[in-house]
């Protein structure tokens, strides 16, 4: 159990270098040394993020075929396509940590890696397309903007690109709702009903209260995460309240009011039991979302096999 100084020193030097990089708020790059736990945390977080983009295609994709104007159909199709693109960048970032997209997909389909719980809620009207843009993408941006400065280089750079596109999506969502609010009574009611359904799930996107968030402390120390759940949730509420007023919708929280003293909005407690149920797999759409993803994956297996066989044959022919 003794180790020679020569064995110990390099690892200690590497760790010191890593710590110094983190302390400088500089980036760790794929070829840099990093602690195993850091690598595992990153893989878990980036994979979960990538899976969220892919699963997140479904709730909005549900309305592409029914978009009520050709302009909105184009916007929605392009948005869902962007989500596929975000999934691609993020799986690539994960691959720099030595885990392949295929492995990550298997972990998702086996239920061994998570995705954002918000996508386990159903989309029930076209207004949901706007609300997801406004509230869900809005909350995602609050979560993600700090990640542009995250310590792992490929992840941070992917996030810069993603956040830029997400902001665009958020504005489009808000603009859809604004347009609908200038429409008919039925459209206004549709927007309000949608906001009623998505408000609390959006607040839960920031995760459980800080006191109950087990992974947060270490992630913050490593610069993988840069703000606490409750800080980000507060920021989101403060940002959203005036937008709701401008829109003319009521956020469904009787406890929501400006607190002059705190300089923030007070707001009610989300239903953490519902969040727990959704995380446990019993949300309204968990089974549906995974079944959809699994069906697409399985239905496509023969195509991927054909492409591989064809590529091998072509390479073989080229080599000859």
């Amino acid at each position: 159990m003794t180790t020679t100084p020569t064995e110990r020193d390099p690892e200690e030097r590497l760790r010191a270098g890593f710590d110094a990089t983190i302390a400088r708020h500089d980036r760790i790059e794929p070829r840099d040394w990093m602690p195993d736990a850091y690598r595992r945390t990153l893989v878990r977080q980036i994979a979960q993020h990538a899976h969220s983009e892919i699963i997140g295609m479904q709730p909005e994709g549900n309305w592409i075929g029914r978009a009520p104007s050709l302009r909105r159909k184009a916007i929605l199709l392009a948005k869902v396509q962007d989500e596929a693109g975000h999934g691609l960048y993020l799986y690539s970032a994960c691959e720099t940590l030595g885990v392949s997209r295929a492995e990550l997909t298997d972990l998702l389909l086996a239920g061994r890696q998570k995705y954002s719980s918000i996508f386990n809620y159903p989309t029930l009207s076209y207004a949901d397309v706007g609300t997801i843009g406004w509230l869900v993408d809005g909350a995602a941006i609050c979560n993600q903007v700090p990640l542009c400065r995250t310590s792992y280089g490929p992840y941070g750079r992917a996030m810069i690109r993603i956040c830029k596109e997400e902001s665009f999506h958020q504005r489009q969502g808000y603009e859809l709702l604004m347009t609908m609010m200038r429409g008919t009574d039925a459209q206004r009611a549709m927007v309000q009903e949608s906001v009623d359904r998505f408000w609390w799930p959006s607040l839960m996107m920031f995760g459980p209260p800080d006191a109950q968030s087990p992974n947060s402390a270490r992630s913050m120390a490593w610069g993988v995460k840069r703000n606490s759940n409750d800080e980000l949730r507060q920021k989101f509420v403060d940002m959203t309240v005036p937008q709701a007023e401008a829109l003319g919708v009521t956020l469904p929280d009787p406890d929501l009011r400006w607190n002059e003293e705190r300089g923030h909005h007070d707001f009610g407690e989300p239903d953490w039991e519902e969040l727990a149920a959704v995380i446990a797999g019993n949300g309204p759409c968990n089974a549906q979302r995974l079944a959809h993803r699994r069906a697409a994956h399985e239905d496509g297996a023969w195509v991927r096999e054909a492409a591989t066989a064809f590529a091998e044959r072509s390479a073989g022919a080229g080599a000859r």
Partner: protein
Amino acid sequence: HGELAGYCLMLGDDALIMSQRLSEWCSRAPDLEEDIALANMALDLLGQARLLLARAAAADPGVVPALPDGSPVPAEDALAFFREAEAFRNVRLAEVANGDFAHVVVRLLLFSAARLALLERLRGSADKVLAAVAAKGVKEVAYHRDWAGRWFLTLARGTDESHRRLVAALDALWPLQDELVATHPLERSLARAGVGVDPASTRDEVDAVLDQVFAVSGVDRPDRAPLAGVGGRTGRHGTHTEALSRLLAEMQVVARAHPSGRW
């Protein structure tokens, strides 16, 4: 101008309905790259459809369905969402239900081989709008045709299963190919006027393109007769398959629930 409008509806509806079918693939493709590619092609065709429907409405406002007074629904949407199936002028190939991935590859190959040949000629249309739409579309549809050709080859020479599925899709869709290069009287008339293109004039070129894909892929050209119409009427005359009204039930449901809606 009624004729020009009708002609624009043919080309526009082809693009619109094909785009709708392609967009159904969203989140269902064999991998992310193909999911993105299919969405891209759906977007390209949707863009072509919007320009062509707008041109139809401008050429003859009479083709646009009437909506309640003061409805803010633009003409392109009135045409897309408020016509009944029999007013659509797309070929039946565009509307039949999606099958497996081989089906989308074959459908895109047949569709874009014919559309590319047509758009290339339409760049010279006496109608400046049509000429411009065609010029833009040529680049897009050339990519679609190449994508489909590449995948046709890949599936043909991939595995036994992919070969079998490809041939099955080709057999199923081939009877719908002829309609793409058959001439409707409206097309003949507009071709004479230098505004439109007679699809029959593209038949040899389209055949040659397809034959080349078949040859490279080692797949036989199907020996199957064209799908009959009803009393000679096909998609171009508004006589469709049973699939179209189902497609429209989905596509139009939200717009129709809100005929005075703003989106």
